């Protein structure tokens, strides 16, 4: 509907929301409405219980029609939450949606202010500013951009795999990029999964091969995203494909080259087995690795180091798959949406030296123990310690690198449950006495508490207290030759010394080491601890602040397998909803040059990081390409002669806001003048 009255003298409709008690409990909303009614240009001023509800919006729509309003101001929650809602209502009333201005008196006022008078006073200032500002609003057209239907999924652990399969099954083309030589992520390393104790490989490998064989999925393993540009609907992504020195097309994964390698035994710590075994320079991470393609590690391969290897591997390969000259490749793809499922890393227990990891050989990280008890692990599932002994007593220390001010403050959510699982498995494998040292047992998941109950009946010991240290300082004869776990047992209130043969450190989950680089590349935010930040903690858990980019799995925060899979499905659904809508609306907050005002001084040209500003050399004026402009307004602030303006953030709009905030005279409270902040 074309708006007709936008350029006439402003006729403002003002609405203040109670938000139940959220606002009205602190801010005197009736006073706010009364005050707004006294401001110039305000025709209607009302307060209402829930402005965002249908009747609330209806109020705006009716008032626009009945009172010939041409500007709308709503004082309620944050514009990041409901600006869109009220713009739609404004539009339904027959106005251009951008004749609307929102005042945040919930997040910015009632929720953060103790004193009622101070809160009301602050609300009045903000209202006055908005009423002044809205007079300068102009009619704007919303931009639409097309959504490219292809999707990029970064990271092929269980989350990335599930997201990719969901999208591919819906008929979308997916490029799945994985940094490691195989997909599968951490889950592929686990032995059994809690609480069902079904084997991780049995449920994961079918999904891995489904990825490999899906016609809609392009799998690029051993590859990393190196550059991202563009915007929602139209991202250009460069992917670096690292050389395997083995042709992915030719190799069939027979692994004969591995046997043929001049190294009789492996010499390099095996990454997949957490260094508990050795691998050769030519290797495959594990037998079910996907893709089933070997790779050569140039750092340890003799041919790369000296160029004088007999190259028995090449001789053995009848498909001539080995190619020492393979180079890194950069591939470029176009996608409309991106799902980040880059996972986590486990806490490095060396950071807590008093737990003795790296000092005492029989202190293990939980991920190492996953490999140690795994039937396809380095010992074939035999629980043999680094010094060759079988443990008679095992201590599992919970919360290593979790719930700890010195390391990570967050709960890693999975450690309690996997510690219980490992306790069960260790007992099963060794008949050892198993002690769990825990702060709290957090078993909040379907069938998790029942699993804990079961463990309690398996004669596994639970000692409540944060372990002080693991030491070889023996104070009694029976402690000689053992590691002593010192802990305050907080249930009985004594300090205990528990001698053990094996210590398992239940390490927490952390953001990937390069999570900061990754999020910068994708232009999304991180929470303080470094996990990717969701757009809203409750209502938009897989969205980010960058449209078209979604997050799934442990890159967003510690998560177990069921939660990761659920989130991956949600992220895929969000991408699908964009793709199926076909296009997306963009905020029309772009900058533009008023050509007759521009002197062509070039001050703005190097300011724009998106190269949206160019200079028309014949007219010697700056020109802003609206499609490239993202609306930051930096050039507007830079232009020394005021020739660049920004829609929605015009100079006069901001100046009028400043003026409104500070024009105290009109804001006299009915209850009396001066107000004081709480001491």
């Amino acid at each position, binding site marked *: 509907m074309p708006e007709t009255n936008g350029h006439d003298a402003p006729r403002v409709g003002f609405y203040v929301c109670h938000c139940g008690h959220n606002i009205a409990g602190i801010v005197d909303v009736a006073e706010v409405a009364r005050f707004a009614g006294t401001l110039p240009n305000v025709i209607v001023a009302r307060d209402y219980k829930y402005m965002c509800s249908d009747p609330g919006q209806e109020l705006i729509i009716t008032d626009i029609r009945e009172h010939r309003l041409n500007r709308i101001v709503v004082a309620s929650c944050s514009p990041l939450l409901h600006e869109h809602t009220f713009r739609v209502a404004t539009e339904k009333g027959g106005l251009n949606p951008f004749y609307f201005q929102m005042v945040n008196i919930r997040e910015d006022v009632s929720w953060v202010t103790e004193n009622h008078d101070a809160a009301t006073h602050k609300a009045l200032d903000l209202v006055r500013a908005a009423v002044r500002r809205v007079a300068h609003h102009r009619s704007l057209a919303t931009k639409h951009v097309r959504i490219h239907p292809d999707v990029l999924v970064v990271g092929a652990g269980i989350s990335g795999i599930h997201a990719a399969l969901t999208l591919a099954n819906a008929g979308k083309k997916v490029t799945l990029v994985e940094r490691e030589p195989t997909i599968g992520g951490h889950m592929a390393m686990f032995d059994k999964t809690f609480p069902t104790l079904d084997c991780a490989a049995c449920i994961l490998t079918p999904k891995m091969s489904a990825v490999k064989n899906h016609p809609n999925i392009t799998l690029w393993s051993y590859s990393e995203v190196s550059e991202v540009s563009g915007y929602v609907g139209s991202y250009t992504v460069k992917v670096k494909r690292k050389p395997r020195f083995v042709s992915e097309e030719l190799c069939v994964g027979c692994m004969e080259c591995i046997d043929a390698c001049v190294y009789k035994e492996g010499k390099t710590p095996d990454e997949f087995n957490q260094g508990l075994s050795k691998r050769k320079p030519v290797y495959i991470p594990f037998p079910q690795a996907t893709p089933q393609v070997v790779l050569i590690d140039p750092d340890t391969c003799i041919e790369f180091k000296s160029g004088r290897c007999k190259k028995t591997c090449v001789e053995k390969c009848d498909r001539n798959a080995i190619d020492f000259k393979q180079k890194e490749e950069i591939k470029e793809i176009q996608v409309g949406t991106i799902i980040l499922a880059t996972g986590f890393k486990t806490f490095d227990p060396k950071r807590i030296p008093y737990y003795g990891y790296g000092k005492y050989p029989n202190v293990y990280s939980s991920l190492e123990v996953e490999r140690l008890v795994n039937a396809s692990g380095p010992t074939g599932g035999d629980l043999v310690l680094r010094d060759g002994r079988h443990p008679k007593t095992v201590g599992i220390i919970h919360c290593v690198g979790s719930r700890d001010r010195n390391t990570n403050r967050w709960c890693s959510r999975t450690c309690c449950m996997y510690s219980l699982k490992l306790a069960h498995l260790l007992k099963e494998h060794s008949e050892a006495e198993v002690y769990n040292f825990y702060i709290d047992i957090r078993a909040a998941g379907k069938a998790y508490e029942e699993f804990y109950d079961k463990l309690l009946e398996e004669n596994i010991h639970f000692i409540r207290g944060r372990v002080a240290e693991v030491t070889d300082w023996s104070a009694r004869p029976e402690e000689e030759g053992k590691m002593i776990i010192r802990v305050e047992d907080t249930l009985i209130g004594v300090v205990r010394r528990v001698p053990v043969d094996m210590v398992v450190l239940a390490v927490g989950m952390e953001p990937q080491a390069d999570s900061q680089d990754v999020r910068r590349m994708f232009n999304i935010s991180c929470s303080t601890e470094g996990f990717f930040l969701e757009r809203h903690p409750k209502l938009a858990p897989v969205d980010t602040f960058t449209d078209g980019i979604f997050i799934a799995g442990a890159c967003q925060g510690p998560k177990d397998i069921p939660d990761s899979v659920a989130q991956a499905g949600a992220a895929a659904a969000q991408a699908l909803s964009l793709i199926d809508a076909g296009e997306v609306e963009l905020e029309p907050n772009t900058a533009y040059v008023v050509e*007759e*005002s*521009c*002197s*062509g*001084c*070039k*001050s703005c*040209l*190097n*300011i724009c990081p998106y190269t949206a500003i160019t*200079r028309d050399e014949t007219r*010697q004026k700056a020109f802003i390409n609206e499609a490239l402009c993202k609306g930051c307004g*930096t050039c507007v*602030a*830079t*232009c*020394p*002669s*005021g*020739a660049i303006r920004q829609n929605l953030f015009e*100079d006069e709009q901001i*100046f009028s806001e400043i003026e409104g905030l500070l024009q105290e005279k009109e804001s006299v409270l009915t209850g009396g003048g001066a107000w004081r902040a709480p001491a």
Partner: protein
Amino acid sequence: MPEKPKVAFYWCASCGGCEESVVDLAEEILGVVNAVDIVFWPVAMDFKKQDVEAISDGGILVSLINGAVRTSEQEEMAKLLRRKSALVVAYGSCAHMGGIPGLANQFDREQILRYVYEESPSTINELHTRPQTASPEGGHTLTLPEFRSMVRTLDQVIPVDYYLPGCPPVPRMLKAALDTLLSGNLPPKGTVLGPDTAMCEECPRKESKPADLAYTAFRRPHEVIIQPETCLLAQGVICMGPATRGGCGAQCVTGNMPCSGCFGPTSRVMDQGAKILSAIASSLSAKETEGIDRTLATIPDPVGTFYRYGLPGSLLRRKIADHN
């Protein structure tokens, strides 16, 4: 013959350059003299204050007042001329924005008087005599105007209808302004009678400015041999051109000196200094505080650089003496 429109010229705190610029009309001044009746022009003609007072209120078509306002006498004359004139034009940078005398707003009154009458190297004043507004002398009282606490723009003292920018305004613009005002076809009140794009538009060096300028250091004109054809900013010399209203024909730049901003900002800008500061700072090369500060340290006097002609008319007007 109908009565010719009356015109008055007056100078407040000014150097006399604005008066010169009127004379710089050269032969055209004869046309002006023909078309108008100059009723007051202290620098050139022997009219007195009483003569102005004798004119009926509003009887002068236009008064062109130059110079900033620093004394009570200047205030008084400005107010008198305002009453007697239909139109008042703030003529030149000082009346327009405070001008060079406005730089005195970085010091308080006492500092200035102490320096001028006691501390300056050329002063011998053992009795520490200061000028007094009233001093008895042989049964009479001699009076002097009061030296106000700060420099003001003309429009901070009286309502001003139009502005003619420049230090001094160029004769061409004066001629055009007079023609406009005499024609009766008046622009909106408050208009600055000049072009409304920045000086760069008419700068002969503008094409030589690189698009990717990133400053690492600034140099003052005396610290560098200025290349005659390259943009001064590209040579690290601060040129106010991008933030300054055009119309002068890029005179300073043509003379191989940077623009120092005498025409003031364009109509879209409130504070010329803030804007050039923004433009220049945005294009620094450094990204971290230390490097930024290192580069900025090469601007020894930001206020004097960015507000050379406009301090009293700027948003902050003057230095706050009690350092708050």
